């Protein structure tokens, strides 16, 4: 299962974190520091999967944004790798300029994530269905 997901900028600051198992706030900070350091220091030609403690990390870079996912030992790396791509494509579809908008709309990113991953498991992969509640929300807000 998926244990956590981080969105991090190139400077190594966490922009969004979502945990699917309980980790104390204090430990989150140190975990994030380790994970971010571990992934950011890797070179382009190195593989996108890293072992870290009991987790496997799957990470992907989009321009100045890194998305890092911690998964359990038995999770399918490539499936998670493409899940990240799918997530980014959903964000892309919703926000016109992804990276600037994320900071201002963390709540919406959370809604999107909740539609895709619940409890560390994939619930929905269909882009229009993922966005349906959010679009309903926007319509309601406009009216």
């Amino acid at each position: 299962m998926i244990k956590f997901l981080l969105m991090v900028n190139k400077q190594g600051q966490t922009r969004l974190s979502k945990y699917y198992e309980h980790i104390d706030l204090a430990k989150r900070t140190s975990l994030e520091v380790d994970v971010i350091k571990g992934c950011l220091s890797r070179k382009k030609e190195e593989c996108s999967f890293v072992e870290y403690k009991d987790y496997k990390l799957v990470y992907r870079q989009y321009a100045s944004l890194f998305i890092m996912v911690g998964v359990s030992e038995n999770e399918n790396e490539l499936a998670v790798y493409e899940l990240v791509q799918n997530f980014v494509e959903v964000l892309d579809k919703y926000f016109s300029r992804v990276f600037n908008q994320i900071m201002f709309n963390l709540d919406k990113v959370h809604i999107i994530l909740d539609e895709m991953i619940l409890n560390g498991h994939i619930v929905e992969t269909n882009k229009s269905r993922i966005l349906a509640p959010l679009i309903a929300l926007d319509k309601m807000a406009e009216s």
Partner: protein
Amino acid sequence: MPAVSKGDGMRGLAVFISDIRNCKSKEAEIKRINKELANIRSKFKGDKALDGYSKKKYVCKLLFIFLLGHDIDFGHMEAVNLLSSNKYTEKQIGYLFISVLVNSNSELIRLINNAIKNDLASRNPTFMCLALHCIANVGSREMAEAFAGEIPRILVAGDTMDSVKQSAALCLLRLYKTSPDLVLMGEWTSRVVHLLNDQHMGVVTAAISLITCLSQKNPDEFKTCVSLAVSRLSRIVSSASTDLQDYTYYFVPAPWLSCKLLRLLQCYPPPEDGAVKGRLVECLETILNKAQEPPKSKKVQHSNAKNAILFEAISLIIHYDSEPNLLVRACNQLGQFLQHRETNLRYLALESMCTLASSEFSHEAVKTHIETVINALKTERDVSVRQRAADLLYAMCDRSNAKQIVAEMLSYLETADYSIREEMVLKVAILAEKYAVDYSWYVDTILNLIRIAGDYVSEEVWYRVIQIVINRDDVQGYAAKTVFEALQAPACHENMVKVGGYILGEFGNLIAGDPRSSPLVQFNLLHSKFHLCSVPTRALLLSTYIKFINLFPETKATIQEVLRCDSQIRNSDVELQQRAVEYLKLSSVASTDVLATVLEEMPPFPERESSILAKLKKKKGPGAVSTDLDEGKREGGGDLNGGGERAPDTSVIAASNASTPSPSADLLSLRAAPSIGSAPPSTGSLLVDVFSEVGPAVPTSRVNDDGFLRFVCKNNGVLFENQLLQIGIKSEYRQNLGEMYLFYGNKTSVQFVNFTTTISCLGDLHAMPQLNVQAKPVDPIVEGGAQLQQVLNIECLSDFSDAPLLNIRFRYGGAQQNLTLKLPVTINKFFQPTEMGSQDFFQRWKQLSLPQQEAQKIFKANHSMDSEVLKAKLLGLGMALLENVDPNPENFVCAGVVQTKAQQMGCLLRLEPNAQAQMYRLTLRSSKDTVSKRLCELLAEQF
């Protein structure tokens, strides 16, 4: 697509976020945040009631501050208030805040539960989804209690919207994980399994996670999911990609769902039904075929998605390990990936091939790739890929290629990354030992290891080489010669000095004939290293010296002089000083004969599992070492108490010894050291043998029997609870057999590691034997918040009075926890109730009139004397409660038969309450005196 909706634009929030982003330093950010927190606090505390919009705005700010990594200690109440709003946006922010910030112990749960209940009943699908997401995210016990009954209904109801079903499935999964006892699937099982057939792919995607988890816990109840999963998979795999519209990802039909289906199938053995199996094999072949087809898109997303399915299919093929054809095809496919330009694929292929190597069908096929893998070890630029290559070499190693692989690993070690050296060293040491045909090669390899990576050679490794040299006299001369040569190097590693010192002390005489390695030369060589070594090594060398005095009397004077000098006999280290003094005295007092006896060559070590292997296992977890290396472990599982894989009592011994100060590198204690210092419970077959004669050792910690008496009249409940751990029990007894489920709940958020449980039957329970308790082994890790289940099978052989003990050990944080509890297995559990009339009863009562057949106690009431309470307790006892038998209606009489394997014992009970005096008189009669006595003791504490 709306860029960013301006409709609900919370301007204040946008300004605040901009401010934060513009902060130049961490300090400035904190300052800005503190200002905002103060502002919000004053708004919440103010006299003016806030409207929904403002509440939402401030809660949203708090949420944002939290997401930036700052702790938030207020605002929860305002968030809860938002839940009851009718505005979706407000409700949604409220739920988001609670999902992210409220932990499961919060006092607010009751209020939150109320709001959730309303939303679930609202029949508004968006509200229902929000509520379900919230349960799935928080998932507390209270929530499980409130909603575990309702959610399965929502999940399978015909009129539930698809999106709600999806949320309900994952929500239920969460509740099942936190409180399995509250989620009763029984009646829902079949309908949940049939969600695999749901028209909607999203519903299947969500439901399959739930079904996978439930199948892992109750494989039998859910096994119908196999055929449904196969047919679903087959439909996806064979469909043209356009059939699945929105679930097609870069021309690959439903990749994530396919992976999940393949994963679910890995919970089960290959399907027994021929048709289902045929269909599945066809699917797997199709997936393998597709890998060879030209890609439908040049996009990397396309091939990644396709390969995700391929790797999952290969995992399934390996899991089945029964289709040679598929295994070899899988291996060939992975072989192609080994040379792929994508690093990710090379990494995954190496990883996957590692498991293929352990299958007898594909081992040979894997071996054909040895050159590619060695090349990867040498040329890959990424350390994690090299690590996988090393793992694969280790897995594919056998007698035919051991020399080549060990040589490659050794040469890689010279440049290997520090992070993986220790593991590499262990692996080389294991392979060298396992595949050694001539032991001189083995000795060379280990000494090379010490030379190349001495710092990473752990004690286990050098202990082991010494054990082997001592046990094989054909290699001793060679070993002595080789270490002597190795010690000539001007700078040699301290581990080399240890091995050298030990081996020359034992077998130096075998090379002493050569003038180049005469006794004095040997001594001077060793002593030249002495001052550079640490205390334990020096202590070992002192022992070598005294052994030299015995082996080579001509060195006596030189050595005595060394021992006599101040830096030895007045050494500030107590251990060194003591050795110097004692050895000096020994050498001058003892006669040659005595000396020869005391300092005799070490006897051979008993054969045991390599302690190195144990160490590697500990390092990597159980699955990491290929199975054929595990033979020792299988033999080691003693049948003392039927402890299954782990020999129960050695863990007690090993661990209690482990707490004594670690043995310094001492010739005499070395003998015991490898087995004690490094033994996980499964290794010590020797200790099992020794102790099986005398019966199990008593666990060291205090026995906790607080919970024990509470279970005399009941079978289920919480046996033990502290801040870390809760242990629940569910048990069922039939005739002389019982099944007990133990639930170990980790109450913390941190995992317990090295979690082991040991059931021991002491005294007569074991000696007679009276009771046979079989325990299934448990996982060594209990995740934070998770619960582990263990099943015990209990057989009552004859009547008994003692209770088995449950010993639990684990590490929490850095601290070892050790707990021993009395297991509530009492003789009354094996009662079969016997109904009888008044006449019968008194007739039997009279028959059991020998004084020793009766046990009686008069005691003060400790609990309520209400007759309904008493009845319930007596029924829980397991005997039949006989109405209208005793002439005094206040009294209770019961009858039952204790069922043991050896015999059955009738038993009658009479309880006479005296409400005025708050006293009872309890009388028990049984055909066996010990039974009456024991029951009387147990029951006297119950009323």
